[in-house]
């Protein structure tokens, strides 16, 4: 039982670290703020949850697992808010590459939904 939990913990830790590396590669290679945010989400949510699961499998006590749950809930509640603010600031500072967008719903909202051609912009 102890061996199984330790192996699970090691797998979780390595997968979480791998997600961090993938996000860092995406940060260096992707072209604009929005696609870099897409890469940045991986270690912030899934990578962190995997690392926390790794800690939980290794420590296996109630108080520690409660702290880990607190960290997970807090990160899951705040990461979307921060990402929303960064994305909106990027859009409004004209840092978005529009040729990479398939659908620009913010432009539709700015036009009051009157111009269907804005969908293709």
């Amino acid at each position, binding site marked *: 039982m102890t061996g199984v939990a330790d192996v699970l913990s090691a797998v979780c*830790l390595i997968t979480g*670290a791998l997600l961090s590396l993938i996000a860092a590669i995406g940060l*260096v290679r992707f072209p604009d703020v929005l696609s870099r945010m897409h890469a940045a989400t991986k270690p912030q949510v899934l990578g962190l949850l995997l*690392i926390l699961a790794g800690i939980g499998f290794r420590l296996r006590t109630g108080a520690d697992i409660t702290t880990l749950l607190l960290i997970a809930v*807090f990160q899951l509640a705040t990461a979307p*808010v921060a990402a929303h*603010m960064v994305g909106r600031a990027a859009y409004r*500072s004209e840092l978005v590459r529009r040729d990479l967008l398939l659908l620009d719903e913010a432009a539709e909202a700015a036009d009051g939904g009157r111009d269907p051609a804005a969908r293709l912009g």
Partner: protein
Amino acid sequence: MTVVVVTVAALLLAAALLTLVRIVRGPSLLDRVVATDVLLAVIVAALGAEAALNRHATTLPILVVLAILGFVGSVSVVRFAVRPPDGPDTDARGGRETVGERP
């Protein structure tokens, strides 16, 4: 377990270095904010992996503080990061109606 330690350390070190490259190169403030968030996530992952591999819970409160700090930091920087590209109609505060005034 030594293999796990070396693997996790190498992966996180490479991730932190690549993230630092993005923080240095920019080009905009928002790129640096996003990269700083990722760097903080890497630091949290490193602290957590160290706690797991050495089987101690000393650094878990630090993880809580770091999670809160990342949110407060990025939100407070981004809150003042919007530069109007074409005049004073875009402040950092407005919603749809200020966007709609744009040509």
